[in-house]
């Protein structure tokens, strides 16, 4: 089972030992540069861009905050957050975790700890963390549990988050929208690179994935309503939904989808048609045509949920 290479947060290497040795000897940036592919997002920028912490504008973070970053990858969020507060970063990849430890050591992050852990079985006490972040991770969790129903696996992970989060804590979830307008227009789904798959029913999507990839379709994303429903099932009562534009990894805007005026203002006064890539031009045209924010919210690319 392989993950889509589009996501720079993962470390792809044929020789993990050499990669980690390079990270130790010449620095974590040098190691990331050594595995940088031309068609991938800039791995160093992904791991260090200040806007990775853009989320934190929405919550109060103090030095006394205790935070958990699930699926920390190369530490883009976790390591920067650790400059402000105590952070525990987990990932299922041993390479990623070891890389994080090397990076934390080189950056002298005293408040940072990285562990290999499974999001569906978090090794932490109840009501432990003030802040939990899960950015571009929920859709990948079922890959580590291919024998289970993906939605059930994801719900289990979200319930674990609720369990370890303090009652007044905040959970920040970034995930793509399965009904993104671009998908209707034939843009390949970002995780598996197949057209229309996220729009199909799950059994049909499985069938398509088997036919083309030889594996089931596990990388489930959700529409706004579906995601909010899943979060409620996991025990989150307060949910604020944002359109993370252009995406939750490199955000330039966070647009509140539950405020009509704000969403319209963004589309009419801030969204530049030039920002859309060639493939998304018709998407842009249709966005301008959609004047009803409830309709618009169904078709945006990336969501950010702030839950408590």
């Amino acid at each position, binding site marked *: 089972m392989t993950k889509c290479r589009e996501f720079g947060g993962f470390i792809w290497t044929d020789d993990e030992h050499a990669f980690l040795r390079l990270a130790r000897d010449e620095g974590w940036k040098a190691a990331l540069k050594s595995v940088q592919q031309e068609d991938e997002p800039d791995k160093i920028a992904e791991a260090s861009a*200040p806007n990775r912490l853009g989320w934190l504008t929405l919550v109060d973070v103090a030095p006394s905050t205790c935070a958990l970053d699930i699926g920390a990858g190369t530490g883009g969020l976790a390591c920067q957050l650790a400059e402000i507060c105590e952070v525990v970063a987990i990932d299922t990849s041993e390479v990623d975790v070891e890389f994080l430890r090397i990076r934390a050591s080189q950056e002298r992050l005293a408040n940072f700890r990285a562990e290999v852990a499974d999001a569906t079985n978090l090794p932490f006490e109840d009501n432990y963390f003030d802040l939990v972040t899960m950015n571009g991770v929920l859709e990948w969790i079922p890959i580590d549990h291919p024998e289970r129903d993906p939605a059930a696996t994801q719900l289990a992970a979200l319930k674990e988050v609720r369990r370890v989060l303090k009652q007044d804590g905040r959970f920040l979830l970034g995930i793509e929208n399965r009904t993104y307008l671009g998908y209707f227009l034939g843009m390949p789904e970002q995780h598996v690179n197949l057209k229309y798959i996220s729009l199909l029913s799950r059994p049909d999507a499985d069938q398509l994935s088997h036919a083309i990839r030889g594996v089931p379709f596990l990388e489930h994303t959700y529409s706004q309503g579906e995601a909010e429903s899943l979060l409620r099932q996991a025990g989150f009562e307060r949910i604020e939904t944002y359109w993370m534009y252009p995406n939750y990894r490199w955000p330039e805007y966070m647009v509140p989808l539950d405020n009509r005026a704000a969403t319209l203002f963004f589309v009419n006064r801030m969204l530049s048609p030039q920002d859309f890539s060639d493939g998304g031009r018709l998407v842009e045209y249709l966005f301008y045509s959609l004047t009803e924010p409830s309709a618009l919210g169904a078709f945006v690319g990336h969501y950010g949920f702030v839950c408590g």
Partner: protein
Amino acid sequence: MLPRIEAYIREHENKWPVEISRSGRLTPLIRFNKEANADVEREKIGRVILWFDDSSTGPVLVTKIMDASVPLDLIASCALRQQGIDKMAGWPIFPDVYDATLISDKPVVFMEAIDTPSYQLELAKAIFGPAGNIQLLKNIVERQFNEIGALFALLAKTEVSRETEKWGDWAFNVGQQFRDGYGLDEDCVSDGSLKIMAKHIDSLALQRNFVLVDHYCANYFAGPRVVDQMDSSLDRRMSGEPGLLDLFRFIVAYFRTSPIETLYPDWVGAIAASLHDESGRSIYTGPAMRQCLRKLGLNLNRVPEIWALVMVTFFLRAMDERDFYRNSAANLSHIRTAFETSATTLVHLQKSIERGDYQVNEGLGQRVQWPRSLPRAREYGSPVRLKLIAETENYNIVRADEHHLAIVKDLGPINLFEERIGDRELTPCLLIADTLEEVTAKAERMKPLVQLVVESRTYKLLRAGQRFLALVQRLAPWRFFATRRESFK
């Protein structure tokens, strides 16, 4: 941080001239600094939050989270200065600043919310948007330059110092600092070239004025009432630069950044063309920019002097960016290359302007070089109205909306309705002019040899001399689920 900011707003809103609904919540729309998605060591500009309440149709308040290095007293003095400028001008140029305080150790400014799009967004919509077209672009360019010209003309009357000064030596030093700062050869920007620039600037006898531009933004003016001036370098700039350069900072930024730069990638050439083109035949920005310069009292016959102002402004801008990116070696290297190219072009054009033999580069865009990646939606737009009105031996003369077109007869029958004809001249198959007489004259001069190579459902492939052209006939219809069908074969 947001909860604390919101709490502060609720505590102090009574003191500010804003109307915020007491019931319901305040909802934030957050804008981040785009630069902070690159590998920079720290954010230079903080975050902007536009606040909406449950009943408002637009933002009710703006909050700016500034960089921690910006002291509160600087913000206060800048706000005061802005008020003073507004009062002198008799016109609200800046958004009102209501308050500034430290929240979570960061300076946070509370300001008036302005419900107008930026100049950059207006242009982007005219060029790339679904309703964009050439006439809209022309109108917007004209309006923007008129506004800026009027604004600067107003501000010039409220100058800090009425006395004029000689700025030649200063300009020469600026040029050298640029060259040395970027480690460029003297071949790129010679002392001789700098002396010529300095001589012309000396001849202009410029005043010190206050400074208007947000120097650290990669964008140019967001338009009056949108930009503010919270900048620690302002005092230095106010006392150390001629005020007229602010207008040229606007001009350089206007052409150097997207979307105008997308239309005219040779931005230096575009400014030169605009300086020379009164009629707008070569470039759409010409008449508007010239009119703007006229408003500021510049003699448009003195192009070498104006070009000197463009040069020194560019050097200043380049040094601003060197300062902005000083902690990022990768970005510095990238901009060095770009600035070296621009400087070389500036000097090259300086020579031809000095000689008086400058010719507008026809390849610059006799018509706008419309972006290659046009939105497909544009091709679904309203059809162009065509009328055959004349013919020559080799061409049909057609009127298409505001254009006259000469279409080579050898092309045979073409369905023109699904293509936005008139945006590009496709010599020798498609000639464009504003009047019937001009396009007929062009057609008379051409002896095209156009061969149809092959024709598909969507394109005619043509050979015209040494060039090959693909002329779209119509768009293919969307085929949903075609992948699915194919993948199950």
